[in-house]
């Protein structure tokens, strides 16, 4: 399952990050590393991007980026 599939209000734990290069680095720099809990807060009014809570702050990312984040 990926972060993209979570609905607002649901949460899960990150198992791995699929992409490589700058995007992966950016995702990890922002605190999304294996083992961290993420809760989906909402989806933007036009359906994308999404807003999540991770490590105590709010982060937004596009669905295509969320798709790279494997969850359980």
């Amino acid at each position, binding site marked *: 399952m990926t972060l993209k599939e979570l609905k607002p209000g649901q949460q899960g734990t990150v198992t791995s990050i699929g992409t490589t290069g700058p995007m992966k680095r*950016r995702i990890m720099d922002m605190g999304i590393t294996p083992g961290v809990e993420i809760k989906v807060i909402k989806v933007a009014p036009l359906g994308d991007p999404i807003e999540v809570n991770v490590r*105590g*702050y709010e982060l937004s990312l596009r669905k295509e980026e969320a798709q790279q984040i494997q969850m359980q």
Partner: protein
Amino acid sequence: MSMTIALAGNPNCGKTTLFNELTGSKQHVGNWPGVTVDKKDGVYKKNKEVVILDLPGTYSLSPYSAEEIVARDYIVKEKPDAVINIVDGTSIERNLYLSLQVMETQIPMIIAMNMMDEVEARGDKIDCVKLSELLGVPVIPITARSGKGLKELMDAAIEVAKNHQKPTQNDLFDKELEDTIEAIADVLGGDNADESYWEAIKLVENDEVVGKTVPASKKDAVKALVDTANKNADGDAEAKIADYRYQYISKLVKQCVKKAHQGHVETKSDKLDKVLTNRFLALPIFAGVMYILFACVFSENFMFIEGLPSPGVWLAGIVETVWGAIQGGVVGAVEAAGASAWAVDLINSCMDGIGAVAGFLPLVLVLFLLMSFLEDSGYMARVAFVMDRIFRHFGLSGRSFIPMLMGFGCSVPALMAARTLESDKDRKITMMITPFMSCGAKLPIYAMFAATLFADHNQTSIIFSIYMLGIVVAIISALILNKFVFKSDTSNFIMELPTYRIPTLKSVLIHAWEKVKGFAVKAGTVIFASTVLIWFLSSFNFSGMCDMEESFLASIGNAIKWIFLPLGFADWRASVGVVTGWIAKENIVATFGQLFGGVSDEAIEAISAGEQALPAIGEVFNKVSAYSYMAFNLLCMPCFAAVGAIRREMGSLKWTLRAVGFQMLTAYIVALIVNTVGNLIF
């Protein structure tokens, strides 16, 4: 002893507030070379020997954004005497990630644990003494907004700088990785062990910028070691390092932070966000905010009240009246003193130049009072969040909406608003296309042509189509620039949505003041010099002062008119119009009024408003070439004031010329298409 202390921290951590509190209003703002990133420094209010430098806000020291490269190059190469790393106590985990990276550079540093008032209000506790012991750098609790703890912070920072007190190296990594990093550092050698160690970490992180600095003779040895590190980390040492840093932080936080509530608790900010980014309300609220922003700066019927000027228009009117009076007085006095006609004219034109600069200042001031409020409050990040779905298709950020919208009023404040975009690439592209939004000063040109040549058509739809043309060309340009000019820059949208906060009046005022000052100084010289130059060209020839018809400008117009042959208007008067339009686009109407048979000032006003035609231009233009001319003037180099704003914001002459060149080329191509296709159809 004089010293430099740099402020480093995440965006929205209160870094700018701290900088303003420490330096007061005595700041110097410029650009870091070649990028659209602010470089701010100032002197510490309580000790003139201490220079404080505000580094751009970054989440990390990776080499993926202009901000990150600037910040880390400064720390690693310029080596300030100390770094104050500001940590937002309300999102301590993510903030400490940057702290660990700054520590890796082994620069003397201390941590300012900011937003302690909010931390306390939430009922949380951060044990700064314990954190300091575990981490190996001094940690001072502060509240930058109220000024609490700043004296202790600066005393500690100056101590650390004087003693060259390096942070302790912590055991972040496992032994295998640590050994590999040290082995790479040994291979690199060099005079400075700290620097080699930092470079070694970056090499394991697959950092391209540091990778390029490795001498050819050492490349193979380094690569072998990096491969080992990757093999031990399941193929991805870079991820492993980020992971280790966060694991270390999690341990620290467990020991030093006591949260009143476990898990995610809904704050006031979350409640506000539920409304502002609500599925149904977000877009109407956004539209309302944008309307207010635009109306406050440009509207002559503010809040739909007939004849009520907005703050921007009202202030601009005052400036214009006051300056007009001064100018009238000075010119009158010079005339009375018996100065020759050209001297009076020169003084008049110089004062016009200054007046042109001064006239923009109220617009810049009002816009930036509002912009800083939106930015500091946290709403601007939501603008990007709400609009991203639309703007990503053009390779732009949702935040580009604001400069582009403002562009319909005036390009000058609009271009300056591009500074709030997240990436250097977005800022540059937005600045290049913002002038394509048809500004208020271009409307009189369309009104003149519509009333004269399109009298038997629906004039409103002709003018509307020009506005649409500008938008379409801007979108196509953004796509082209993204694909071909900035192709190496990756775009992502992994962005913090900061907590909503009420901005401090002081930060808002300082920011607006900086913008006004920056424009007056940097752009002012460009505007003033070019206005005087065009005045000279249009009022002189080799035998002295003359009418515009015989001036250098007319000769130049004659010499270059062939360039416009493919566009349908190879006439010297049309060429002169393009040039005088660079002083201010509405000047084209006055120039045509003069060159096509000398009409009165009242007539020019009526023509500008579309109430009267100027039949003489029919000698040169037909419908197709008139449309082509409108399109050309819409898209070609904007007025000198806007070019000055581009110069100020790009911070580089090269990029200013590129932007202007791009606009000229676009204008030529589009007008060529209009003329060619138009002639085929009509």
